[in-house]
């Protein structure tokens, strides 16, 4: 089972790589107008309420594109989506078979944690793909992120399957780590449209140096911004529960105090504050959407710092990483 899990990880990585190449082909060979035009038409109507503040109303999915894209592009896009889903299935199977091999929940060390969080991200992305077909081609960036993270997990963080240390042998592992992994996975997927929104809005302002040149083929800025907000709003309460409620309850029974400013706790607190700042900034009309989204991107950087930086540079009570 352990060997199967490792093999499936390789399959997942190759799958994401293949999906990335297919999406890149869509970008390269697809006519550049299709996406942009769809996005334009899809962009929101802005209305002014009677005497009220401007009210933005989102008009659902776009209709069929005006110009039918070349068959080749459609074909590449479908293959890409299918390969991405297959890669996600391999990734989740890898996680499950690892759990079967260890007779326990498969998120007991850093390698397994990254595998679990990226699996959640994969599921979150598939949900977005199903509900927002117009955004499907953003799979390029999702696949890229997956390849990078799975590569780091497989090459640097890998540890063989083993039983849990007594400190982790608690049902709170199922609650705390699961909630944190789910929210991290969704934050990861929320980060993709957040970053792309910044690129797109830079492009809309006339900046065309890399990476803003990518904006040419991105959906409308508000679509990206709204998707990013909804994903963040979904993940934030789960993060609050996982990191700031379930975590402290477990910490109390394991270490005797519910909060002790362990480096991992400090960075969980920082991430929470930054994401809370994002939600506030976005709700404040006087703060620009780009500024608010920049805060969300910063929030994801603090998440990365917590996952990699804290495990590598600091020693604390959360040192189960196996590094």
């Amino acid at each position, binding site marked *: 089972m352990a060997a199967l899990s490792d093999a499936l990880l390789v399959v997942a990585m190759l799958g994401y790589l293949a999906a990335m190449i297919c999406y890149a082909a869509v970008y390269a060979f697809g006519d550049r107008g299709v996406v942009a035009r769809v996005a334009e038409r899809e962009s929101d109507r802005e209305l002014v309420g*009677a005497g009220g503040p401007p009210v933005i109303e989102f008009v659902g999915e776009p209709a069929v594109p005006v110009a039918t894209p070349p068959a080749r592009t459609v074909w590449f896009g479908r293959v890409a989506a299918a390969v991405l889903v297959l890669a996600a299935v391999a990734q989740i199977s890898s996680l499950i078979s690892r759990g079967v091999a260890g007779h326990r929940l498969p998120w007991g060390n850093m390698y397994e944690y990254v595998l679990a969080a990226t699996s959640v991200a994969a599921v979150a992305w598939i949900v977005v793909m199903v509900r927002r077909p117009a955004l499907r081609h953003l799979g390029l960036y999702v696949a890229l992120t997956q390849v990078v993270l799975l590569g780091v997990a497989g090459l640097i963080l890998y540890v063989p399957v083993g039983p849990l240390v007594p400190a982790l042998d608690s049902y709170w592992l199922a609650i705390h780590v699961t909630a944190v992994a789910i929210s991290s996975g969704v934050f990861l997927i929320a980060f993709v449209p957040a970053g792309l929104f910044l690129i797109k809005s830079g492009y809309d302002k006339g900046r065309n140096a890399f990476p803003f040149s990518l904006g040419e083929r991105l959906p409308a800025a508000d679509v990206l911004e709204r998707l990013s907000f909804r994903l963040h709003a979904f993940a934030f309460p789960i993060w609050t529960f996982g990191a700031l409620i379930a975590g402290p309850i477990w910490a109390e029974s394991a270490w005797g105090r519910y909060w002790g400013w362990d480096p991992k706790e400090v960075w969980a607190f920082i991430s929470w504050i930054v994401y809370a700042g994002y939600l506030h900034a976005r709700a404040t009309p006087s703060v620009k959407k780009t500024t608010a989204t920049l805060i969300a991107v910063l929030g994801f950087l603090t998440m990365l710092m917590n996952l990699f930086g804290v495990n590598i540079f600091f020693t604390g009570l959360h040192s189960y990483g196996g590094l």
Partner: protein
Amino acid sequence: MTATDTRPAAPAAPPPRKPGWSNALVTVGRSAWRQLTSMRTALVLLFLLAVASIPGSILPQTNVGIEKVQGFYRAHPTLAPWLAKVDGFNVFGSPWFAAIYLLLFTSLIGCVIPRLRDHYRAIRSVPPNVPARLDRLPQHTTVDDHDGDLAAIAATLRKRRWRVVVRDETVSAEKGYLKETGNLVFHVSLMAVLVAVALGSWYGWHGNRILVTGPDSGFCNSLQQYDESKLGPRVDEGRLPPFCVTLDQFEATFQSSGQPKQFKATVTVEGDGPTHTADFSVNDPLRLGGASVYLLGHGYAPILRYTDRFGKTQTKEGPFLSIDGMQTGSGAISFPDANVDPVTGKRDSSLQMGFDGIYLPTAPAQAPYLRSEFPAENNPGLLLTAYRGNLGLDAGIPSSVYRLDQGQIDAGRLKQVGEGKLLKPGETWTLDDGSSVQFVGTKKYVTLSVRHDPGQGIALIAAVCALVGLMGSLFGKRRRIFFRLASPSPTSSSRLLEAGGLPRTDYPGFAEEFASTVAAVREKT
């Protein structure tokens, strides 16, 4: 604060008054307060709090591990005192960190109180009048052939949990008050968390100690019996709950890799109800009335029997601190009362004995005997070094019981006797002066933390309330819907019904909800 721009609007400018410094003071105060309670300031303070936390994870913190702070002092002797001056090793207890969160919470209070008042009014008030031009609202539609029964419309809306008022020929309805309610619950709960933390630090206490197995090494809950302890400023030392704990047994099992598998400590508790025994472990603390006992670590305490040059025998045990995952233990055992001349009864302070050493629960087959190969006692060995001389214990300076005084060794007042020697359990080592030391065996010990925090229950309840409020504020949507009957036409009994909808917060699905609500109203006719 996740709602739209609902910060209190600036009050209207006060009527011009005679200039005077007291008026100026009021003006300055008022504008400072307005500044502090603005969203922009709150955001800046929020970020300051995040940035201010970073040094707390980079620099070693006294409350997390004092040894690391001491290590930092040794590594950076010039930098460390400067950092200590700005509370670099106590970031989360420092005045500047407190200043940020207290300002943030003041800003929060300044924001929440007017909003509580406004929301209380909003909840008690009825939905507003129907606007003159419904066709200017984001959602607008008309229904032909309506029977004009406004009460039926109101009933349909009420069933869908709208708050409804019927005025003349119009119906106004509003829904989604939960958003602002949740928002306020969230922010008030955050303040409650802060209060709970403060309660915990005022009325809480903790003590840490090592507890060796055996009936002679039990401890009672008083400050003198802890290796390290801290009382909140409002805790009376004499009123700590009186209980005594003796460690009967400690079991640890390991994987073949040496990774721990399971721990179990069995203790006898006196003074907390009837005397009873209890088991506890990592993740499963011992809950006593007024305190909890947590298992933090474990190790071995070698027992030495020293027979001095006058033939007098003393037996002592000393917990050796584990220095790695394989339970290699490092420690020292002192015999300050050794070699007392039985004739004169005089202590010769230059003939005191001290042993320091490394304990290896599973010693390697070959030298060097530096690291244990497994955490269980499969092949125990004690690598001992003997010292004779002045242990430096009489100076009254507190010193570590896990180390001999290095100062005395460096000054030549404490001299090493012979070479180090590896002893198996039961083996005896005869020193140059005819005295001998026997490695009798080991006892197990556990490191315990005994704690009481009266704020933690409140903090948990407040945090759960905050989460519930947060979900209300993130997923609640305030919206209004209006209906107006057109004036009756002389030719027909049915009438034209005009409907309009206004989402007051960001709500992508409002168009669908509006359509389905209007459809429900239409079906009723």
